[in-house]
């Protein structure tokens, strides 16, 4: 469903980060991308999300080349087909938990009945009317997971989702994330430094100067 | 009196300066101006008591009294009282009661050797509202609370009190009126119109009270009165004058003056000496000679005055010695003009002869204002 063809990307100052990168992600596949700092993991995510454009090469999602889309169209694409989970949660402080989760549905003009169900799935039943400041970090990330999946996106992008969490909570969150991605039939890419986190994915890819290379097998379950 | 200091910088119309200026000014103006004022002409007979009073048809007129007084403890004092009447020759048609047709100017000074200087005060007002006037018929002059009145019997009453000094005197004649010049026609220059009507009353017996620092002191003494009126007075070339009037111990009366020219020398001079019997000897200009014998420089104005003067009238030699040197009237603070007017003692041919008043004007250069 996601095809990367010979992607090249250099920083403004000229340093090359991605060179001739090609990769294909199949529908329903959940992979982890690991790599050293500065190797271009976040750049890659930005490119996939259409928030940045490659210097050359093509990124296709379900056959649509997103680098050919203008800002509105790529935003529309993100709105309908993407879900995002961030390291710092990025939950809007003045919206309730339910409202935060409902945001993608509202953006897509879809009915919001599914919010209750999602709340239950991520273990936040009865917390829907709470404001983010009343929640712990793990709970905030649960909200973020619910928000990322409520509109049944095709692809979930998670950038170091457990970076701000303690190992126990991180474990729970990673399990939940995987479960939700699978339950919603989405593909997923998780960018992380943590081997424990990467291990929850179907496959682990190493991002180096030379490209994306499969590492040893990922999810053991 | 910082207030008066402040006004002093201004060229205000005021007593002495105005008089001095007028003397020269109107002499020059008389010919050009078509004035309602009358000229002084020879051959006009003075009539009394009418001529004791004011003469409103003439430009300027003054009653001038000087004299020596003695306190009960025999301390000498000199005094001077002057009332001027001045016709502005303006406002003829103005019906306002404030219309300034005549001005009354008055001046009082007291020379007190104990104080070492002259105390003086001056005032100016327009005639009107019975607050200031000079009445015809008999001497009756008033400026606010200052008065000079001649009673029917010839006695003069003077009341001139200020905040810190003053005079309340009665002056009784002991001799006849002395007509100066040609029966009261007194020439002041080469031109016949440079003249005044002029009489004197020497040897007035004075009794009364002097106020010093507002304390009354009984005094008695002898005084001299001049009454003079004119429309044109001084020669334009005149610089100033020296004048003396003296009551002599033997009952004689001496009056002498010289008008000094701007280029030095005298423009005119005159003297009259009346002996106790009433015989008057007149001296022509060339018979009268003023010679300074000692000068005094004023610390106030830096003007140099011949305060001791040698006067020759015909064969007679007079020596004048001042009661005190500093008898300068420094009115720069209000008027800007300064002169010396002081009590003097006289010797005649080196013998003590009497006491009088010497007036020295025109010794200060015009002040830069």
């Amino acid at each position: 469903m996601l095809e990367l063809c010979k992607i090249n990307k250099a920083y403004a100052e000229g340093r090359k980060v991605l060179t001739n990168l090609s990769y294909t992600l199949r529908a329903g596949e959940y992979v982890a991308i690991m790599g050293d700092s500065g190797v271009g993991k976040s750049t890659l995510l930005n490119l996939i999300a259409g928030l940045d454009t490659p210097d050359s090469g093509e990124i296709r999602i379900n056959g649509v080349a997103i680098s050919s889309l203008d800002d509105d169209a790529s935003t529309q694409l993100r709105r309908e087909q993407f879900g995002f989970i961030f390291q710092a949660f990025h939950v809007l402080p003045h919206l309730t938990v339910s409202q935060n989760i409902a945001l993608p549905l509202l953006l897509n003009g879809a009915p919001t009945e599914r919010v209750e169900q999602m709340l239950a799935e991520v273990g936040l039943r009865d917390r829907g009317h709470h404001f983010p400041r009343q929640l712990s970090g793990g709970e905030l990330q649960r909200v973020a997971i619910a928000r990322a999946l409520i509109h049944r996106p095709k692809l979930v992008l998670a950038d170091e989702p457990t970076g701000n969490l303690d190992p126990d909570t991180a474990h729970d969150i990673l399990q939940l994330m995987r479960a939700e991605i699978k339950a919603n039939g989405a593909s997923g890419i998780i960018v992380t430094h943590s081997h424990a986190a990467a291990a929850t994915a179907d496959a682990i890819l190493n991002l180096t100067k030379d490209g994306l290379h499969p590492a040893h097998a990922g999810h053991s379950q | 009196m910082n207030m008066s200091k402040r006004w002093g910088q201004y060229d205000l119309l005021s007593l002495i300066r105005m008089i001095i200026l007028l003397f020269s000014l109107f002499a020059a103006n008389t010919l050009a101006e078509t004035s309602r004022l009358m000229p002084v002409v020879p051959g006009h007979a003075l009539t009394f008591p009418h001529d004791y009073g004011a003469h409103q048809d003439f430009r300027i007129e003054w009653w001038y009294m000087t004299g020596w007084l003695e306190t009960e403890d025999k301390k000498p004092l000199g005094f001077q009282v002057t009332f001027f009447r001045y016709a502005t020759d303006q406002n003829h048609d103005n019906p306002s009661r404030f219309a300034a047709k005549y001005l009354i100017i008055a001046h009082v000074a007291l020379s007190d050797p104990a104080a070492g200087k002259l105390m003086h005060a001056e005032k100016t007002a327009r005639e009107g509202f019975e607050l200031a006037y000079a009445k015809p018929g008999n001497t009756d002059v008033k400026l606010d609370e200052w008065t000079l009145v001649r009673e029917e019997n010839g006695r003069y009453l003077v009341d001139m009190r200020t905040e810190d000094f003053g005079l309340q005197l009665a002056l009784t004649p002991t001799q006849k009126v002395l007509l100066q010049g040609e029966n009261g026609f007194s020439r002041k220059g080469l031109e016949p119109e440079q003249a005044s009507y002029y009489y004197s009353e020497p040897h007035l017996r004075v009794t009364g009270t002097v106020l010093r620092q507002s304390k009354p002191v009984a005094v008695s003494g002898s005084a001299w009165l001049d009454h003079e009126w004119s429309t044109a007075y001084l020669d334009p070339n005149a610089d100033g004058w020296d004048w003396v009037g003296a009551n002599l111990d033997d009952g004689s009366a001496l009056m002498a003056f010289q008008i000094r020219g701007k280029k030095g020398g005298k423009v005119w001079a005159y003297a009259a000496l009346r002996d106790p019997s009433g015989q008057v000897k007149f001296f022509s200009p060339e018979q009268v000679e003023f010679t300074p014998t000692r000068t005094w420089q004023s610390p106030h104005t830096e003007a140099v005055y011949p305060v001791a003067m040698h006067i020759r009238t015909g064969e007679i030699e007079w020596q004048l010695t001042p009661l005190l040197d500093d008898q300068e009237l420094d009115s720069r603070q209000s008027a800007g003009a300064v002169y010396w007017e002081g009590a003097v003692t006289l010797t005649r041919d080196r013998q003590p002869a009497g006491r009088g008043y010497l007036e020295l004007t025109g010794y200060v250069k015009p002040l830069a204002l």
Partner: protein
Amino acid sequence: MKSVSLSRWLLLGEWRAHILQVIVAIMAIAIGIALGYSIHLINTAAFNEFSAASKNLSGQSDLQVHGRSAFFDESLYPMLAKYEGVALANPVLELDVVMPNKLQNRNDHKLKIVGLDMFRATQISPDLLGVPVEGKRLDGLADDAIFLSPAAMEWLQVEQGDVLSLNAGLQTITLRVAGGLVRARSGQRIAVMDIGAAQWRFQQLGLLSRIELKLKHGVNHAAFKAELTKQLGDQYLVVEVTDQETRIANMSRAYRVNLNMLALVALFTGAFLVFSTQALSVIRRRQQFAMLRVLGFTRRQLLRQIVLEGALLGMIGSLLGLGLGYAIAAMAIQFLGGDLGSNFFPGIKPSIDFNPLAALTFFLIGLGVTVLGSMAPAFEAVRAKPALALRSGSEDAALSKLSTPWFAMFCLMLAMLFTQLPPVFELPIFGYLAIALLLIGGIALMPRFAARIFTSLQNVWGAQAGAMVTLVLARLANAPNQAAIALGGILASFSLMVAMAIMVTSFRVSVDGWLTHVLPADLYVRTVSVGDQGGFQLSEQKAMAGLSGFERVDFFRTQQLRLDPGRPEIMLIARPIDSIDPRNTLPMVDDAMTPTVLPEGVTPIWVSEAMVDLYGYRPGEKVSLPIGKAADTVFNEFVVAGVWRDYGRQFGAVQMQLADYQRLTGDTSVNNLAVWLGSGATLDAAMANLRQLPFGDALEISKSRDMRALSLEIFDRSFAVTYLLEIVAVVIGLLGVGASFSAQTLARAKEFGMLRHIGVMRRQVLVMLAAEGGLLTAMGIVLGFVLGWAISLILVFIVNPQSFHWTMQLHLPWGWLTMVAVIMLVSAAMTALIAGRRAVSGNVIRAVREDW
């Protein structure tokens, strides 16, 4: 590392990062201080110069004797000159003479001519003695000579030696400019003549304006004054210099105080803006401060850091403000005059005096307000538990401590109470306090109000609302404090603008209606009058009344009366008044007593509202006024038959029947006449007829519609400064909106970044920002309107009657208010948009990543 350099790093870092906010804060405080300071400077300069000029005129006397009317008989002069204890009596005749070639400048066309006896004046007012040409000393006494101050020479464009033509009554007189008045104050327009000449030339024979007395040393002034007052009786007033000063102060006090209050309003708006900038800046950095606390900053250090920041801003802003204020004042005085075009201080030219104390006071006000603005949020930041503060989303909770409803309610209650209190020293002090409290209370209530409104909006739209609406409403409803702070400045300035607009409109509409009522005739004719005499004698009255084309002619006799030595003169107007229904003649405030109610044999008068306030005259009351035969000026009894509205004379006016006046005084002359034209007659023909009279050239003929237009023009000019201040206040308010939106946009970068990630379009973000700004402003406008309306009630019904002693009806300028509201709405939304354009830049996307 020394803590000093740490402190400097923190400060410079913060300022470098938020230079725009820093500049706005400095500008806000600078503009506020500049306005307050410049108005203070202008007022002080004008007032001091006016007093100095008046003192210059009245000299250094111990006492002054005035008549009840402007002039009295000169026979008092010799009596006082001889009076026991009087050292000097200085008679003065003071005339305001209309200059024929200045008539187009109706409000500023008079030359003050002082008639003096220079021999008397030399000791009391030497500054007023003319300086003649060398050798022309007697010009000071001449009946054709006039001495002019340099300003008067410049104004009249004459020099020494020129001839000056003046109108005195129906005659023209020519005077010789004999010299100058070198001691007149710079800009003071006066002329001096000999008193006898002035009496004669200006037909004031036998009359004086006042007699100034100098007492002898050692005379007890108070005892002397009491004795003399008793001796002179009721028809004269013995006045001390202090009375004179009171009187001068009274003349312009209301004007000055009101202008100062307006300046304070500008300062207040500026202060609020600084407060909000500081508060937002501190809140934005809560996490940073919490981190510093975690790192080991003590509370005291942190507090000092924040307050130091505010103090520096305050210092820079205040210093800038002082300089700016000085420049504004200098320019305003140069171009508008000391009374800013309102003609409160005619005939003078003030210069600004730098008073270090005043400058320091304003500097401290600026500094104090800024430090206070930093203190409140600083205390909150310092008290916060670092662990809690580190978490985002707690900002608004922090702010809510700054606004408790109790405080707001207390302010509003107190304001209500203050509106019921009477004036203090004849000034509406409590009225102004009530306005301030209303503003403070209103602003403090704003967050609650915003939360309530937007929550209910949310409930109304609820689920069916789209993502954007939900986002906007949720933010406004759940983070009302930040929103409210942004809006505080705009709320303050808009409500004040509304209040002023309503007040000015009410005033203007009332004045317009009043003018129509008081100027019913077609033409008004007056002589170029001098002094207090009616310019038209019976023969001239007959000649004018007999002209063809006139349907009706009313004659007016106006005169000034002095009732209280500490107050300016009142105006007496004798004219035909409809005795059946006075409302046909006078703009009555309430129902007048009809003559049938009046007791037999009493003379009715109708008094202006100021007479009620200042002298306590009540309808139906018997009062005694110095209106009688000139020879034996006696008091006569009158009954107050009614109260009329007078916008022309804030110091009081009395109207009576001309017939009554003539019966009581025997004075048959009149000053003015009102002419109604018959059918078929034209204004131009009527004016031509009047001009053809033998004295036609000396007539001043005005069409009533021109007079109305001119009056309104003067009215508008007087309020020009008000408008200017309003605009400045609003600009400050908008600046504040811009600054706080910009600050908040920056603080919300991550929020926008996340929104962009999850599929919110760039333009949707902008729409969201504009909607937030617009909705907030709309609410601010609604609230500001309500607040402004309440304030305008205070202005119209409390401040105006208490300071100027006139009442008016409330009129709302709907069109204008709508226009201003729309402009505000659009500009606030625009401001929000411009401030928010950074919210959609590429940086925003990166803001969500924290591992870079």
